[in-house]
């Protein structure tokens, strides 16, 4: 019987002929944690009786969520993570380096890898054809110590995409649309595998945006095949040697197949307080917004900033609205600077903050006041997500975010606007 991508990767790594529903023990190519989950991971590791990390050189720690530290408790957490990384010979990513998932994509993940991270959006690396999933601190601690962990091989849904994306409609609109269809628990325990003719034209940046949000439908991971787009992406990063082609078997068995006609997609938002409350932008157009956030592991990459900068060029944001931009990594920041995007944002009236999670983590760099509304390119709009349970968050694409910042109200991206 043919295998899905998830079954293929987990079979290859675990050394057993794995099918959906099996439990396998898989060696990990990479195990990582960050400043928020890290301290508990370290504590659990120390209590586990395991005396050392299996592979410290591939157990990186990232300081990305609450950086630079906004208060002493968080500064102490970061100090603890730094000390542990240095004692154990783990790579450490410092304040300003960027968001863990983006850095793993840029520097570590390879097609066919099995990766676990102490963060739910670890599924991002599925854009590169890696089986990557988020776990809690204890699971990560054990994976660090043993170099492996158990995984249930998920059943897969195939999301088959055909047709061309209309101008102004992007990967974020696609994945929000899919989550709206599946609902926030519709793919719990499953793998979302993406396929179809449109993949050929989907850039790596778009694939990462889509894979990143698989978890918002409950999925364990989101997976793209590894193809020519993957090859050229890795080559551009100087990691061409990591490439291997990878796809599902033609007779792979899927629990469900969802057909998406990209041509019919429109710009959408997820309304507060659930990621699956997805409606066309046109339905909420005119809603007042106090803050716009462009960034996060979903939409903080160069292409996202380029798209937003293209819309904001020569314009100013509405004075009632603030715009916060956080490039996803140091290299994205540098490239956005070189391309002039940061200048465009500054001239438009934005505040640019350091690479990292910024307001998405709900701790600093843009916490909302009572009754305020934020339109964000991030991935979650749960009540309280941006640090205040009495505020509201809409999720949208970078294009919708930029257009909305100019108006100060939720606005369709220009090429899509009527007339």
């Amino acid at each position: 019987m043919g295998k899905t991508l998830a079954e293929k990767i987990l079979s290859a790594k675990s050394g057993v002929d794995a099918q959906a529903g099996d439990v396998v023990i898989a060696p990990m190519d990479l195990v990582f944690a960050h400043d928020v989950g890290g301290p508990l991971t370290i504590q659990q590791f120390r209590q586990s009786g395991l005396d050392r990390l299996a592979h410290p050189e591939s157990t990186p720690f990232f300081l990305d969520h609450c950086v630079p530290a906004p208060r002493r408790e968080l500064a102490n957490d970061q100090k603890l993570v730094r000390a542990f990384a240095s004692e154990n010979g783990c790579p450490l990513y410092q304040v300003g380096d960027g968001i863990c998932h983006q850095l793993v994509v840029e520097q570590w993940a390879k097609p066919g890898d099995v990766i676990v991270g102490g963060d739910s959006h670890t599924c991002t690396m599925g854009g590169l054809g890696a089986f990557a999933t988020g776990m809690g601190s204890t699971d990560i601690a054990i994976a660090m110590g043993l170099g492996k962990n158990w995984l249930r091989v998920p059943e897969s849904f195939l999301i088959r995409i055909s047709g061309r994306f209309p101008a102004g409609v992007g990967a974020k609109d696609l994945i929000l649309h899919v989550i709206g269809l599946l609902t926030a628990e519709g793919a719990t325990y499953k793998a979302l595998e993406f396929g179809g003719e449109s993949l050929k034209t989907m850039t790596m940046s778009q694939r990462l945006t889509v894979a990143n949000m698989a978890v918002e439908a409950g999925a364990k991971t989101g997976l793209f095949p590894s193809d020519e787009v993957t090859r050229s992406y890795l080559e551009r990063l100087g990691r061409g040697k990591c490439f291997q082609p990878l796809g599902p078997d033609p007779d792979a068995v899927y629990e469900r197949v969802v057909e998406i006609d990209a041509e019919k997609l429109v710009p959408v938002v997820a309304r507060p307080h659930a990621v699956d409350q997805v409606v066309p932008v046109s339905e909420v157009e005119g809603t007042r917004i106090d803050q716009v956030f462009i960034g996060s592991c979903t939409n903080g990459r160069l292409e996202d900033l380029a798209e937003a900068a293209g819309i904001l060029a020569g314009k100013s944001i509405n004075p009632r609205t603030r715009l916060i931009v956080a490039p996803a990594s140091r290299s994205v920041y540098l490239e956005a600077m070189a391309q002039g995007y940061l200048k465009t944002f500054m001239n438009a009236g934005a505040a640019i903050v350091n690479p990292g999670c910024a307001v998405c983590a709900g701790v600093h760099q843009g916490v909302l006041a009572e009754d305020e509304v934020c339109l964000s390119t991030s991935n979650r709009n749960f009540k309280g997500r941006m640090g205040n349970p009495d505020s509201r968050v809409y999720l949208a694409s970078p294009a919708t975010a930029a257009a909305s910042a100019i108006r100060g109200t939720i606005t369709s991206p220009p090429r899509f606007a009527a007339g």
Partner: protein
Amino acid sequence: MLKGRAIKLGNDISTDLIAPGRYMHLRNNLPELAKHALEDADPDFVAKVKAGDFIVAGKNFGLGSSREHAPLIIKMSGIGAVIAESVGRIFFRNAINIGLPVIIAATQGIDDGNELEIDLASGTLDNLSSGAKLNFAQLPPVMLQILEEGGLIPYIRKFGDLQFQAKR
């Protein structure tokens, strides 16, 4: 055998509602963080929970982030088990890993304050208040073994490795 009262919560209780991001600075100070458990879903939760009580929730309990602090502070509040129609994947694993039982069952018929008796071994839930009886599915064998040891850390302390074989 577990016995306690039902504390009813609704659908889609995210980890952001259980352990809000605005208390991020308390993540390494669990006793303080636990004072805010579920504050944004039910402000009286911590005050009213008694040792052994059950959270009885609707669908997709614990969706969202991988923060293990969420099941930890639920356990610290005294909750003996989480009963829900469905649970978020990472929360499920985290709860078992720290020794907090999770039961997937139809919870619509259970009212706030009902006295419940649960037998994990046989998979039965007796609602002593209404007289209704429910059966629920056993945990997958891997998770059951971890829970029986009190969580993944005690499990690893005992065996030094993952013992189970790949199986269907």
